[in-house]
Structures are given as structure tokens and as C-alpha cells.
């Protein structure tokens, strides 16, 4: 086994879980998140000798995961698929904590956002990245990032209190 393979395995073991967590926030789907991360890491691993010379390999792979999530290939290859039922349970049963219900509500509202807006929200409120950095990652201007964030928050605020059953059973790429 070469040192390149060793270092790649070490990278996957160290940063893989973080990448999956990031992808889970983006996709709102456990399986799809792992699918994206494994795809990206497999491609990165085949050219690891070149990628490992980058200044910040972790940032590079994070951006690769984001690009894969936003790519047209992934958008058209899996627009509709059975929802991961373990993630939501429909309307909360009586007596369930209000926080759990609110979490489900937020998740359902996030699932209805466009992918770019969801990515902006995840990078802003989960990774706490500044807008400049988000703009660099998305390849757009800072004002575009602010516009995406404003529209996404507006959509979240104006989302119906109880999402319909159709929205819950379709993966979160509905617009």
C-alpha cells in the first residue's frame, strides 16, 4: 500500500463523518447524503496525488460535495424517490414535545426550498460561514447569497404550519 493510499484513508476516516453530516443537512436524506459523499470521495481518491497538493483539502472536498449536490446530473437522476420514512412521522401524536413538532415543521419547510437556497442556509446557519465565503463556494456574488438567504427565510416564515402529506413523501427538491 502506498503512502498516497494511506493518507487518503486517513483523510476519509478523519473528515468523512463531517462530510456526511454536511451532506445530510443539504439533502435531508441519510442515504442520499452517503451516496454523494462516497461518490465524491471515490473520485477524489482516484486523483488523490493531485488533490492532496491543494492548500486546504478539506475545504476542497466540502466544495466538491456541495457541487455534486447542486449538479444537474444529480438533480435529474434522482428527482423523485421514496422518502426516508425514518426522518419524519407525519403529524406529531398528542403529547409529543412541542420542540419535536417544531423540528419536523422546519425540516418540512426546508425540504420545499430550492437546493441553492437550502445550501445557503446550511452554510450560513450550520457552518456559520460568512456570506463572502459562501459566495466563493457557490461561484456567485455576495449580493446573490444575501438574496438567496432572504428568500429562503421568507419562504420558511410563510410556510404552512402543517405540511401536506404529499410534501412529506417526496424528497426535498420540490420548488
Amino acid at each position, binding site marked *: 500500500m502506498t503512502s498516497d493510499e494511506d493518507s487518503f*484513508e486517513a483523510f*476519509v*476516516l478523519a473528515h*468523512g*463523518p463531517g462530510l*456526511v*453530516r454536511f451532506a*445530510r*443537512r443539504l439533502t435531508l436524506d*441519510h442515504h442520499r447524503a*452517503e451516496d454523494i*459523499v*462516497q*461518490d465524491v*470521495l*471515490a*473520485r477524489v*481518491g*482516484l486523483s488523490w496525488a493531485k488533490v492532496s497538493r491543494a492548500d486546504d483539502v478539506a475545504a476542497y472536498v466540502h466544495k466538491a460535495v456541495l457541487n455534486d449536490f447542486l449538479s444537474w446530473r444529480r438533480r435529474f437522476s434522482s428527482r423523485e424517490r421514496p422518502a426516508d420514512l425514518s426522518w419524519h412521522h407525519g403529524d406529531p401524536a398528542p403529547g409529543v414535545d412541542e420542540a419535536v*413538532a*417544531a*423540528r419536523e*415543521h*422546519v*425540516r418540512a*419547510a*426546508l425540504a420545499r426550498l430550492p437546493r441553492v437556497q437550502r445550501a445557503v*442556509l*446550511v452554510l450560513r*446557519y*450550520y457552518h456559520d460561514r460568512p456570506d463572502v465565503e459562501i459566495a466563493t463556494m457557490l461561484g456567485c456574488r455576495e449580493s446573490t447569497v444575501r438574496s438567496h438567504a432572504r428568500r429562503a*427565510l421568507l419562504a*420558511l*416564515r*410563510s*410556510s404552512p*404550519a*402543517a405540511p401536506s402529506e404529499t410534501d412529506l413523501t417526496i424528497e426535498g427538491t420540490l420548488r
Partner: protein
Amino acid sequence: MSAPDGRDLRSHLHDPALDQGISPVGLLAGVQARQHRLARRRRHLTTAAAAGAATLVVLGTAVFTVREQAELVTPAQSPTRPPASSPAEPVPPTTPRPVSPPASSSGTALPEAALPETHAPGASPHLVLPASPAPATTTTTAGPRGVEPVPAGPPPGRVSP
């Protein structure tokens, strides 16, 4: 239920339930399996591309050869004609070229207009009359440049007996 705001969003995104069930070793195994599959697919693509390129080269060579042979075949029914351009022998000149005068002492050749006219007036310039010996009395004809005309008769200074 109230609409979600930024605080709800932040708390939802930091939900620890989203971080459960991630196995680094399982992830690595999945990545390695995909790497093998991807490498195999790339090898197949490379082989297919090389085979396609080789087929194109062979086909192109074959087409070129066939077209080259088709251009050489003449139809059986058509009358045979001599080739338009045959390697003919050089046509011998029917008229001798005018003898050029001796080169001057300086070595430069005279221009064409300075050459004496050897054909009859009115005749075709290509018709060259045979050179007749000039009579002794007509030695006044200007000879080539640099040659003094020789007077007829005995040389001066000599008295005949």
C-alpha cells in the same frame, strides 16, 4: 404552530439526531468499493476509446485505398484515347538557331536586337535564309563590333611591279 424563524432553523440544523449512525469505517469501505468500480469503468472506457480509434484508422485507410484504386480504373466501353499529357520527346527544332556572334572581349552577350538580321524582309522571321558568302565588294557591311572593315585591293604601301 408558528412559522419557523432563524433560531428554529439553527437549532434544527444543529440537531444531534442528524449526526447519528455515521460509521467512518463503513464509509471508507463504501468509498473503496466505488473507487474500484470507477477505476474499472475508466479502464473499460479507455479500452473502448482505443479500440474505436484503431477501427477508425483502419477504416480510413481502407477507404483511402479503395478510392485510390477506383480512380485508376478506366471504363471498358469508352474509346481509348491517348493520354492528354504523355511524356513526349522534345521536338527537334526545324530551323537552326542563328549563330550567335562571338562574345565581346568584355564577355557580355549582345542583346537580341543587336544581332544582324538574317532573314529576308517580309518573310517570316522564323524562315532563315541560307547564309551566302558575301562578295568581296560588299565588305562594307558592318561586321561585328570591334572588327575593322578590310578594304579591297592590295594593302597600302606596296607597289606592284
